[in-house]
Structure formats: structure tokens, C-alpha cells
């Protein structure tokens, strides 16, 4: 191999690790523009209002301390996941609609690297939501044991649910041609997955209810939060509720990256 061929190969090798470049640019775009900060501000306001209602005013507080923390943790997981989904569902379809996707696809960076960079950048939205939510749960927790449980639930269960749904949003964004359709589909799926944990009748159903709750990564994550924080059950009894969030995270992340190969511009016949 000649020196010039080696230099060209080195350029190609560097281009192959382009996910880092995409991640850096997407993260900067998210946090230096109004988008990320405004979504985070809305999340903070929602969580503040809820925390105030749950614990701030003795006259309107109908929940005990554990229930209050449980409500705030579950809301933080749900809304935090929603913020990450809003970003990931726009990641590819938004580029497509703004006419910037083609210029990105004609660079030497592989499509899976583009998707990986965007996925990681969208995940920073959840990390920011987590940073905002942690002080709330720590302050509201009644004692260090509850505080530790709340932080662990938020980090582990919330992290897995958010990762799975962020990957789902990105996968949808890759093949849905309209940005509005991508956002609508991703948010609808999140709401549908979250709904069972809010319907007590399902959990009381003899056999099918609990299975459905455990199989659904969002309801499993939220149920785990409820069991640990409100019902004070041991972590060792809750591992089953982490199975579907773990599997969903792995499967949906793999799907998002594999679907990247079929990523289309959208205006070809």
C-alpha cells in the first residue's frame, strides 16, 4: 500500500467512527438551541408542580411520604421518557423534512453511525431529565433508605424505559416519512404502553393482567417503582419487572441500528 493510499484509508477509517462527530453535533444542536432547554424547562415545571401538590402543602396533600415519592418518580420516568422520545422521533424524519438528510447520507459516515450518534444525543435528553428529577426525589424521600430506593428506581428502571423508548422513537423516525407522523406514532405508543400500569383492573385480573404488565417494558418499569417505593417490597422480588425493560432496550436499540441500513430519503419514487 502506497503512502497516499494509506492516507486515504486513514481518512476512511476516521470517517467510519463518524458517530462521535454526529453525537457531538447533535448534542450541541439540542442543548445550544431552544429545543432541548425548552423541553427540559417544561419537564422541570411539570415536576415542580407535581412535587408541590404531593408534598408541599399539608392542606392539599392526601398522600403519605412514600406515595408522594412514588408519584414523583413515576411521573419523572414517564415525562423524562417523553422528552427523549420527542427528540428521537424527530431525529431522522426531521432531517428528511428539512432537506438535510441527503447531504448527511452522501458523506462517508455509515448510516448506522449516523443513527448511533443521533440515538446517543437523544439519550442526553433523558440524562438531563434525570439530573433535574434527582434533587426532587432526594428532598421528598423520608429517610436515606427511601431516598436510595427512589434514586435506584429512577436510574435503573427509568433509564431502561427511556433507553428502550428513545430507540423506538428513532426506529420509527427512520422509516416514517413525515415528522408529524413519527412524533404522533412514538408518543401514542408510549402512552399505550404506560396506560396498563394506570388501570388497577388489569393488575387484579387473575393471570393475564400481571403477565401483560411484566411483558410491557413501560408498565413493568412503573410497577417496579410502585412496588419498591410505595408497597415497600424488596428489590430481590422485583427483578422480574426489569426483564422486559432490559430486553426491550436491547431489541429496540438493535432494531434502530439495523433499520438504519434501510434508511431512505423519502422522495424517491
Amino acid at each position, binding site marked *: 500500500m502506497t503512502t*497516499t*493510499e494509506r*492516507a*486515504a484509508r*486513514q*481518512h*476512511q*477509517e*476516521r*470517517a*467510519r467512527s*463518524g458517530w462521535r*462527530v*454526529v453525537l457531538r*453535533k447533535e448534542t450541541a*444542536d439540542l442543548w*445550544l*438551541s431552544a429545543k432541548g432547554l425548552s423541553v427540559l424547562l417544561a419537564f422541570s415545571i411539570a415536576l415542580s408542580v407535581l412535587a408541590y401538590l404531593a408534598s408541599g402543602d399539608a392542606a392539599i396533600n392526601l398522600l403519605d411520604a412514600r406515595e408522594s415519592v412514588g408519584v414523583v418518580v413515576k411521573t419523572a420516568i414517564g415525562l423524562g421518557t417523553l422528552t427523549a422520545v420527542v427528540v428521537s422521533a424527530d431525529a431522522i424524519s426531521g432531517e428528511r423534512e*428539512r*432537506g*438535510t438528510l*441527503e*447531504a*448527511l*447520507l*452522501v*458523506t*462517508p*459516515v*455509515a448510516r448506522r453511525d449516523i443513527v448511533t450518534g443521533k440515538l446517543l444525543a437523544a439519550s442526553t435528553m433523558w440524562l438531563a431529565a434525570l439530573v433535574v428529577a434527582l434533587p426532587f426525589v432526594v428532598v421528598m424521600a423520608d429517610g436515606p433508605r427511601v431516598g436510595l430506593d427512589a434514586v435506584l428506581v429512577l436510574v435503573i428502571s427509568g433509564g431502561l424505559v427511556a433507553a428502550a423508548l428513545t430507540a423506538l422513537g428513532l426506529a420509527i423516525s427512520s422509516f416514517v416519512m413525515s415528522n408529524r407522523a413519527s412524533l404522533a406514532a412514538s408518543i401514542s405508543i408510549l402512552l399505550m404502553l404506560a396506560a396498563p400500569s394506570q388501570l388497577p383492573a388489569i393488575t387484579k385480573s387473575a393471570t393475564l393482567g400481571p403477565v401483560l404488565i411484566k411483558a410491557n417494558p413501560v408498565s413493568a418499569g412503573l410497577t417496579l417503582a410502585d412496588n419498591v417505593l410505595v408497597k415497600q417490597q424488596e428489590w430481590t422480588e422485583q427483578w422480574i419487572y426489569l426483564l422486559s425493560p432490559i430486553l426491550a432496550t436491547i431489541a429496540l436499540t438493535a432494531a434502530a441500528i439495523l433499520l438504519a441500513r434501510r434508511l431512505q*430519503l423519502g*422522495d*424517491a*419514487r
Partner: protein
Amino acid sequence: MTDEPTPALALECVDLHVRYGTFMAVDGVSLVARPGEILGLLGPNGAGKTSVVRAITTIVPVTSGTILVNGHDLTDPVAIRTSIGVLPESNGYPGIQTAKAHLTFYAELFGLDPREARRQAEHRLRQLGLDDKSQPIGTFSRGMRQRLGLARALINRPAVLLLDEPTLGLDPAGREDLLRQLASSAVEEGTCVILCSHQLDEVERVCDRVAVMDHGRIVADGTVDHVVAGSGVTQRARIRVALGDVLAADEVLRALPAVSAVEYDNARPGDIDVELAPVDGARSQLLKVLLDARIEPRAFDFQRAALSDAFLALTSRGRETE
């Protein structure tokens, strides 16, 4: 990057087919282009130009056929994309980014380290007259955006530059500016430029060769003169001679093989309208036969067949034979 030894052909497409479902968008296109050459890729809307460009850029799958870009074939799409620069027709920009940040990002995607990427971005911005780096792209005029698009397409010093309607929506000054940049890039950097455009006057002016597409096929390929000649469109001349020379002029003009018709304008005695086949040197042939016959033209207006006439003839012929 194009540090490799330059191949004789910058671009070679052989029997290229691109199918979308049941629709054959590109139907057996073969093209070659050399380093430093500007090739105009013409055709009506839906002719398949954009599909050819997207096949070359590896972003739409090729149904059959081969593509070689700077010596790299489709088995190495990363090498192809490293060798090309593209200004797509549907060209959007992130409004909040500055031009420098935008170009630096693309330079890094092409494998440049951050410092070299910033240097290259500044060089291209200076080259294209976009020195004010602090302005967000959202405040740019259409012309500035197109120049930024060209700067982005040139950021990796491509061997092949593919431009889809680069002057669309630009004012005349902006068009001139962009075309001047293109020509200088081809000459100074040896870049092969593939220019898709409906602006036939500018294609005629800057392109070394043109390829005309219709219904997914190449219907003409060569220099502008060659394509015009092959299209069969006629050229026209109006000659004014003294009234006493009209008959003699008629005789010598009709004797010319290139002349297909000679007509008179009754309102203007002495004026002769001549229709000629699009052969090279037709103008001088006309003058020569008149002067040889001692007929001195009092006025001579020659209208060479334009590329636009050839384009209409070639593409309408394509529709008729469908």
C-alpha cells in the same frame, strides 16, 4: 480525499439501471467523465437525472450496471462517498448553525481532524466569499446558501462534484458567481463536475460536454456542437443582397448540401431566409459561396441552433418513440 493517483476517468457508469418498484427510473445509462471536465446532465423533469446522481452517490441502490468513481466501484461505497462532493436539489441547512460550524462538521464527517476541519472550512468560506462566519445560516440569502452548499460539496476536495440544479432561484449575478466558482474548481483542482440543470444557456456556456436524458435513457452525449448537430434541429440565416443578385444568390445557396430551404420575405425585397442543417462551419460556408459568386451581402444575420432547440427536439423525440 483525492490524494490517490488520478485515474484517466473520474467517473464511469456502464449500463446503469435503477428501478423503484415497477418504475424503471434509469434504464441503461452509460456515462464517462474525465478529471477537470464539466459534464452537463440534462433532461426534462422525471428523466432520471437525480436518480443517476443518487446512484453515483450510493444513496439509492443500483438495480444493475457498474459505477466507477475515481477508480472505486460500488463494492466500496465508503471510498466512493469519500471521493465525491454533492450539492443536492433538496438542500436544507440548519438555520441556527454558523456557516463555519456547518462546514467544520462536514469536514469532520469526511475524516479530517477537528483542527484541519476548521482550517479547511475557513479556506472554503473565504474561497466562496462567505467570510462572515458569525452569522447563523438562517439569515443567509438564497445565493449565500447555494454558495455554502457548494463550499460544503468541495470540503473534501472531491474528485467528482455532483450538482443538482445549483443555480435554481439565484439572480443573474448569483448565477454568474456560482458558475465562475465551478469553472475555477474544475480548472484549478482538476475536479470533474457533473452539472444537472434546466438552465440550458449556462450549461452551454460552462460545460465541456453534455448528456441529454429522457425516460431514463441517454438520448445524446457529446460536446454541445455535437449534440446540437445530432439533434437535427436547423440553423437559420437571413441574408440581404442587392435586388439584382437575388437569383444568383438563390442558385449558389441551394447548391450547398447543408442548405435545406431558401425562402424570400416579400415585405423586404432582397432579404433571403436560409435554413441549414446543424453542421460545423455553416456560417463561413454561406459567406464563402456568396463571395465566390461575387455577391456581396449587405446584411448577414446567422442564428446558430441553440442547445435549448436541440434539447426540445431530442426529448420530444423520446416521447414520440415511447
